[in-house]
């Protein structure tokens, strides 16, 4: 790599930052979500449909991280209940062609499930500077529906993240559901 004079380095860096680096770098931040599906003592149990996505502060869905539904049913019948995840459906689902590579998957039973994603790598593309909400929504047949909202700001060093700061400059945000979702934790490490 050529040496750049200190004078040039700062504008060049700023320019790169403004472009919001779409090139994956070895320094790309990592995002993880752990989501608990509660064990329910009910007569008829169906695994919930779950969607996890990121919205910007104008409630536009930016990135779908995961959608778990009955993708393997005959004649795509499992798509019939996608709209029961009402918020996800209006923000994103209704304009998607299902299934989505790297996003959709089979429903999951009670227990803790996790996602590990790297910014700049599908399906998690780079974010522009701003305030975001990671949203997790669950809807269960003959059951209820619940949506949890986990706010964060980008870039990570934004002062809005200070309350959720972890060692090493990352953040950790947790919300707990009461019906269809257990604890949902978002962690981002630089």
């Amino acid at each position, binding site marked *: 790599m050529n040496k750049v004079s200190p004078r040039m380095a700062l504008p060049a860096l700023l320019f790169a930052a403004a472009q919001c680096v779409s090139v994956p770098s070895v320094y790309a931040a990592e995002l993880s979500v752990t989501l608990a599906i509660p064990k329910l003592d009910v007569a008829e149990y169906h695994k919930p449909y779950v969607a996890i996505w990121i919205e910007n502060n104008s409630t536009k869905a930016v990135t779908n991280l995961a959608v778990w539904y009955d993708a393997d049913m005959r*004649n*795509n*019948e*499992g*798509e*019939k*209940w*996608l*709209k029961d995840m*009402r*918020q996800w*459906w*209006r923000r994103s*689902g*209704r*304009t998607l062609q299902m299934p989505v590579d790297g996003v959709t998957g089979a429903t999951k039973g009670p227990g803790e499930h996790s996602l590990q994603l790297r910014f700049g790598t599908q399906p998690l593309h780079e974010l522009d500077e701003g305030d975001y909400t990671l949203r997790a929504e669950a809807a269960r047949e003959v059951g209820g529906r619940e949506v949890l909202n986990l706010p964060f700001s980008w870039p990570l060093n934004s002062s809005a993240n200070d309350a959720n700061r972890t060692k090493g400059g990352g953040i950790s945000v947790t919300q707990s559901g009461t019906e269809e979702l257990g604890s949902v934790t978002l962690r981002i490490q630089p």
Partner: protein
Amino acid sequence: MLNKNLLKTLLLSALVSASLSVQAHRAWIVPQETVLSGENRWVSFDAAVSNDIFLANYNPGRFSDVQVINPDGSAGQVENLHTGKYRSVFDLPLTQEGTYRLLLASSGLRALWEEDGQRRMYPGRGEQYSAEGFAKAVPDNAEKLSIIQSSRRMETFVTLGAPTRTALAPTQQGLELVAVTHPNDLFAGEEATFRFLIDGEAAQGADVTLIREGTRYRNAQEEITLKTNSNGEITVRWNGAGRYFLEAEYKDNKAQKPATVRSGSYVAVLEVLPD
């Protein structure tokens, strides 16, 4: 004096549907669901004439003329129409993605006059409007004649996949709703804006009433009453999630001659989802 030829021309040019009598009381078409996903989906509808919101206990109405506008603007058709004692039922196969509009609309002239001191009207109660009937019933020299240009429209909307707007295009005839907020994208915690047009122009001062379903399980109707502004618009703050009966009434004196009064009524059933 009435020019019968002019009248006939007007009458023939009017959109005539046989369903005026359905709307003597409150009438409604209620979709079982309005927001759908997946493939090979159908929606079932209940329709009736009844003053109790969505409680079919008066008469089943006449819904054989219900029209469907598909998402691409073409005409669709309901299937399995069944007329029960109190309720009509039919189904709509959703063959395209997007928003469907179901409607019954009619417009025409109504005449009120006196004969030998008796009040007369055409069309009479339960009578179907027709140009010939009008010409026959209303005498040339009718006393105290007033002619009303009236329009009625009843609608509901369902969407498979993402909402679209082709089927929502206004006809520029009678009183109609222009959905500023999409009628299948309504949420309890959000305001919705609707605009009303009369013959294609802003209907200012229309009275709009909205009633959420389930009046049987509460002591008050809890109706929302609004008046359209100079742009013909209302902004609705919902009384929670549920299906709503929306009714708008409009009247002015800008009728096409020989009518002297122009009136319009509009009914829609809208579903509002929880946030």
